[in-house]
């Protein structure tokens, strides 16, 4: 017994000694198009540092020590960096940059703080260098490696997995043998924050998948179905929200948002709840289709153009009486109006919001539920990306001086408002969800023609599916039309109260 205790004690002592004396921190990983390799890091006085000779090899730097002047001269692709050996300072072509610590020395080797890579090397490098300290990564070159952070929460019987993806990256969600596979169009994933904070009955684990581009969500045996939606997340990220629904043992119908409609207190928001002051002065509502263009046709013959006009009129009345905001309709009769004319009406009246109302159709009669769309720029190529970031131009003004104006191709006006449109779309989706059944893909982006020319936040609401007999009846019914109108009015109130309310 005694020898065993002694042996265990000795091992523990050795371990403790190793931990305390740990001269080298965990290595970083350098990711390039060619592959990955480790980059050793060491800790000096609580500062993580890289060996300068490792960086020199990696980034083709030349290093010369000037002992007389107390500095290091580093050549990087024709540019010269002077690094003080005494002070936490570097000079890039004469411009000073601070560092968290002065370089450290071990024998003949110089060590520089990890931030040297992001603050000094990245600005002078012809190739992109991205230092990600929390994930211990150095990305070199054009690597698409979005950060994916996961969170699991339990919502009553359901569970929700939230994945924040930055920058937004195209992806698919599919179910495969007891797990969900989320596949990203990327080179790899930065999954340092992937580990789920908790697990539930329905979500057993969230982990990296079998390829560098996938994430697996291991499901519990009682999962019946899932619903994935994309939403704008914090700080320009995309938020993938996956709701998992358990099997119901009892034959009782699951949560159909139909019957308990009166419950969400329809009278709660009082009339004229907020004074009309604030961001929104004019709202343009666009009843989809009209005239020669009947739009979609219902299972029993209801025409989309009739439904959209009826609901648009109700919505106009409700906004005017509750919010006191001016509302214009792009048509107030069964007439043909061009798609360009609809956006121009909103632009010419300097509207603050553009809401296009539509009713959907599917070749599958079972499809039902409302959806909210905002513009996706994927179809518009580089011109749209440029328009989204177009600089202001200075124009001379009569009488001297200049005035900053924005020059944007008219047909891409919406490109400047994608973020605000996304926020408003999210508000509409959330408010609708409280009152009416939603489709399985309730919040989407698409290159919709009527939205692209709108020079203000703009959304297109698909109110429901006319090809579904039950929904066709709902869309014609007073109470359902009122529920839709209530929801959109509430979304406007929420949007106005949020960051998007001021332009």
């Amino acid at each position, binding site marked *: 017994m005694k020898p065993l205790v002694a042996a265990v004690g000795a091992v523990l002592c050795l371990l403790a000694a190793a931990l305390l004396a740990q001269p080298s921190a965990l290595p970083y990983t350098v990711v390039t198009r060619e592959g990955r390799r480790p980059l050793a890091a060491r800790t000096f006085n609580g500062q993580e540092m890289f060996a300068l000779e490792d960086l020199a090899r990696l980034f083709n730097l030349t290093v010369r020590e000037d002992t007389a002047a107390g500095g290091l001269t580093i050549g990087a692709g024709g540019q010269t960096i002077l690094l003080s050996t005494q002070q936490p300072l570097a000079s890039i072509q004469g411009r000073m940059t601070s560092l968290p610590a002065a370089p450290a020395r071990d024998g003949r080797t110089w060590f520089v703080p990890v931030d040297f890579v992001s603050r000094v090397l990245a600005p002078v490098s012809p190739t992109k260098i991205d230092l990600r300290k929390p994930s211990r990564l150095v990305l070199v070159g054009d690597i698409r490696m979005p950060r994916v952070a996961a969170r699991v929460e339990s919502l009553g019987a359901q569970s929700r997995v939230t994945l924040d993806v930055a920058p937004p990256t195209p992806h698919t969600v599919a179910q495969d043998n007891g797990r969900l596979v989320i596949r990203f169009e990327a080179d790899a994933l930065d999954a340092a924050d992937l580990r789920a904070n908790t697990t539930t009955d329905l979500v057993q684990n969230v982990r990296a998948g079998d390829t560098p581009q996938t994430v697996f969500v291991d499901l519990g045996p009682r999962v019946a179905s899932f619903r994935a939606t994309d939403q704008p997340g914090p700080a320009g990220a995309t938020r993938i929200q996956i709701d998992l629904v358990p099997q119901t043992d009892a034959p009782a119908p699951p949560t159909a948002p139909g019957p308990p409609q009166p419950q969400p207190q329809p009278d709660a928001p009082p009339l004229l709840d907020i004074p009309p002051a604030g961001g929104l002065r004019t709202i343009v509502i666009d009843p989809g289709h009209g005239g020669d263009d009947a739009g979609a046709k219902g299972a029993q013959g209801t025409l989309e153009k009739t439904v959209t006009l009826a609901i648009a009129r109700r919505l106009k009345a409700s906004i005017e009486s509750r919010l006191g905001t001016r509302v214009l309709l792009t048509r107030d009769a069964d007439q043909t109006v061009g798609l360009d004319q609809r956006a121009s009406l909103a632009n010419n009246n300097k509207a603050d919001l553009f809401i296009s109302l*539509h009713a959907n159709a599917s070749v599958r009669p079972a499809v039902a539920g409302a959806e909210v769309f905002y513009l996706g720029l994927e179809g518009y190529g580089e011109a749209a990306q440029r328009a989204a970031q177009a600089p202001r131009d200075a124009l001379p003004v009569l009488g001297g001086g200049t005035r900053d104006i924005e020059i944007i191709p008219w047909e891409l006006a919406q490109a400047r408002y994608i973020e605000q449109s996304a926020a408003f779309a999210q508000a509409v989706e959330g408010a609708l969800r409280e009152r009416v059944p939603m489709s399985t893909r309730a919040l989407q982006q698409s290159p919709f023609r009527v939205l692209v020319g709108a020079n203000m936040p703009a959304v297109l609401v698909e109110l429901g599916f006319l090809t579904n007999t039950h929904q066709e009846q709902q869309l014609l019914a007073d109470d359902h039309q009122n529920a839709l109108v209530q929801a959109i009015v509430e979304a406007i109130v929420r949007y106005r109260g949020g960051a998007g309310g001021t332009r």
Partner: protein
Amino acid sequence: MNRTVALRAGLVIFVGVAAWVLFFGLPRWYSSRKEATVAAAAGTPAAPSPGAAVRKITATLFYVSEDGMTLTPAQREVAFSPDVSAQARAIVEAQLAPAAPLVSAIPADTKLRDVFVTERGDAFIDLSGDIVARHSGGSLDEILTVYTLVNALTVNLPAIGRVQILIDGKEVDTLAGHVDLRHPLAKSLNWVVHDSH
């Protein structure tokens, strides 16, 4: 003793012969018959390169998923062509062909007028007006119709980066009032589900 040995030997030989017939003989006989019927059906004007079997590629085509919300990929054999425009044409023809029980997002009887591909890798698919006249008019179906065609070319042919749909030889604003068709669209797998579930 001798009888059981003979029986076993007989059984082994029988199984061997049966296996050969099942795995090699039958398929050979069957495929030769099928080729004969295909050749007969094709008639005289077809049969481009006699002797050599017609080369095929496996193309990914797209159909409306069970739940109606997305596109489901399906593999189909399509005649091979060394020319990009001709290959694109063959793929679009296959995509337009009826594929019951699969449901296509493209209205039935839509006819292909022409396909041409520019040097920049933009493909133009010129379709008959049936695609508009017979469309359900829903934005969801419209998105699925457009991306069925865009993805059928961009997914199968790396030389094609973007696709524009023309109707009766003319550029159009939209098919049914929603998706902007005034310029070529790039591949979008946002509307494609990977594994059927």
